[in-house]
């Protein structure tokens, strides 16, 4: 059992008022708030220990390098990867996916090949592949969804043709919360020797993760959505793939030897970390992951399920409200519209009531098109949210209906 009030005290931002009303933060899908220990860690690193990593002979540099590599080990353990060489620090999920789209693409994508994505994807897991397809003369194929917002798995086999060289799929839909049966999907792809990239931007913060058990070939996530600092993220890649992919950026830190005739690359994972990395953020990210571990991932799953159930039930009591994405398996994120009321109008009223939600197409225009709408209101909750806050949201929505009805 979690003590939510105690947990809320760990997050300074949550105790404030906006427009004189207590802040209700339901925009965790966009970014999560940061616990005090993460904020403190960043300050401490800059105030007391700052020094560039991997190249100093001096005390501060070697200390910082140790911390950075320890952070990598924390990430490895958190996602149960086999080796630290398989953990690349990036700027975020988008950067991680772009890295794979470029480097994997350089090595393995040829004219006529296919890249398979799904209708549930965030633009970040569509556009890098489109760029790759264009560069290489390959094409993009799409696995569609059903009316519940679930992938049409029955179509997967026929789409996994021998032309498909990689399947890039989200673990959890950012816009409507569907949790995809990724284990089953990965197995089907692997039966045909097709590697799979998982977009974990909305997955890693909502439950246990074991990349070895899933057997995914790549896993991408962002630090800022898992209570860590912005500007940091992770790419997990199986060693065999990372070894066979060329670097996507050249510069310092990623080289072994540089000469005008022939430059050789550093070993994994540094081959993919050109330039001075955002080491304070990476170290503070490890702090955030430790925080999640201390809260307990099983506890998080149990409590967020309870929140989802309550939110879902409460929203369904509002006449004229329609939920988009009704899969049985969802994270605590719900997208909805109230009959005839524009999502932006809903969001603007909720804002002035102190309730932060996201409105719009959630960087998933193809998904919105498939649902036949322009956008939704999205409430994305996490373990520091409460049922009382859900009640306030529902009161706010009644107010919206009253104003626009």
């Amino acid at each position, binding site marked *: 059992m979690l003590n939510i009030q105690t947990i809320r005290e760990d997050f300074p931002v949550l105790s404030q008022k906006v*427009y004189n009303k207590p802040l209700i933060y339901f925009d965790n899908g966009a970014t999560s708030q940061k616990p005090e220990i993460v904020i403190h860690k960043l300050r401490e690193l800059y105030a007391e220990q700052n020094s560039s990593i991997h190249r100093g002979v001096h005390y501060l540099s070697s200390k910082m390098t140790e911390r950075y590599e320890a952070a990598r080990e924390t990430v490895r353990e958190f996602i149960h990867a086999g080796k630290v060489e398989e953990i690349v620090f990036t700027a975020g999920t988008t950067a991680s996916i772009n890295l794979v789209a470029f480097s994997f693409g350089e090595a393995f994508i040829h004219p006529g090949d296919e890249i398979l994505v799904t209708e549930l994807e965030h633009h970040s897991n569509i556009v890098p592949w489109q760029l790759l397809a264009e560069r290489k003369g390959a094409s993009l194929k799409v696995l569609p969804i059903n009316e519940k917002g679930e992938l049409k798995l029955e179509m997967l086999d026929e789409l996994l043709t021998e032309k498909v060289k990689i399947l890039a799929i989200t673990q959890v839909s950012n816009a409507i919360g569907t949790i995809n049966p990724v284990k089953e999907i990965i197995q089907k792809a692997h039966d045909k020797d097709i590697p799979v990239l998982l977009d974990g931007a909305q997955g890693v913060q909502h439950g246990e993760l074991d990349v070895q058990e899933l057997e995914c070939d790549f896993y991408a996530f962002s630090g800022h959505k898992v209570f860590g600092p912005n500007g940091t993220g992770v790419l997990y890649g199986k060693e065999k793939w990372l070894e066979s992919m060329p670097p996507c950026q050249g510069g310092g830190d990623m080289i072994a030897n540089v000469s005008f005739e022939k430059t050789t690359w550093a070993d994994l994972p540094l081959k993919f970390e050109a330039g001075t990395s955002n080491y304070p953020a990476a170290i503070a990210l490890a702090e955030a992951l430790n925080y999640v571990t201390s809260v307990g991932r099983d506890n998080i799953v149990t409590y967020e399920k309870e929140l989802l159930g309550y939110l879902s039930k409460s929203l369904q009591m509002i006449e004229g409200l329609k939920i988009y994405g009704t899969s049985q398996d969802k994270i605590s994120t719900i997208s909805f519209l109230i009959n005839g009321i524009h999502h*932006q*109008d809903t969001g603007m009223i909720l804002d002035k009531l102190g309730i932060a939600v996201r409105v719009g197409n959630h960087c998933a225009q193809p998904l919105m098109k498939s649902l036949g709408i322009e*956008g939704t209101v999205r409430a994305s909750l996490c373990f520091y949210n409460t049922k009382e806050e859900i009640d306030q949201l529902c009161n706010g929505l009644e107010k919206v209906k009253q*104003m626009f009805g």
Partner: protein
Amino acid sequence: MLKENKSKEQKYLKMTINEVQDEIIEEFQAFDDWMDRYNYLIELSKDLKPYDPENRTKDNLIEGCQSKVWLHAEPEGEIIHFTADSDAIITKGIVALLIRVLSGRKAEEIKDADLYFIEKIGLKDNLSPTRANGLLAMLRQMKLYGLAYYAKQQKN
């Protein structure tokens, strides 16, 4: 309704742009609550001159990622008449204010107008570049029309 709108526009045109702005500021001073302001914008959205569906063209569309705005300009001599629309109601209310201040004015006035009322009535956030509702783009577009027609007039 149409007739009423026309007489309203004529009423505003007897005033300067700044006088209309001051009038709007005064109207909003009556509200100390955000909900009242928004309710008033909802009212204003209903009074906005109906937008000709034929002008809902791609060229006239100013797309934000949250809501859409359509803007149509019709020059008449030195003057530009604007009509506009939005799919979101509060945005449409703000659109109505921009129309009230700038439509039916000389191109030169539109190009030079300093729209201070937006900040004064607390709607600056709604027109900031971070708000993806097309309003800022609409305002820029209105000013661009002003500039373009003014330049054209200078040539003739």
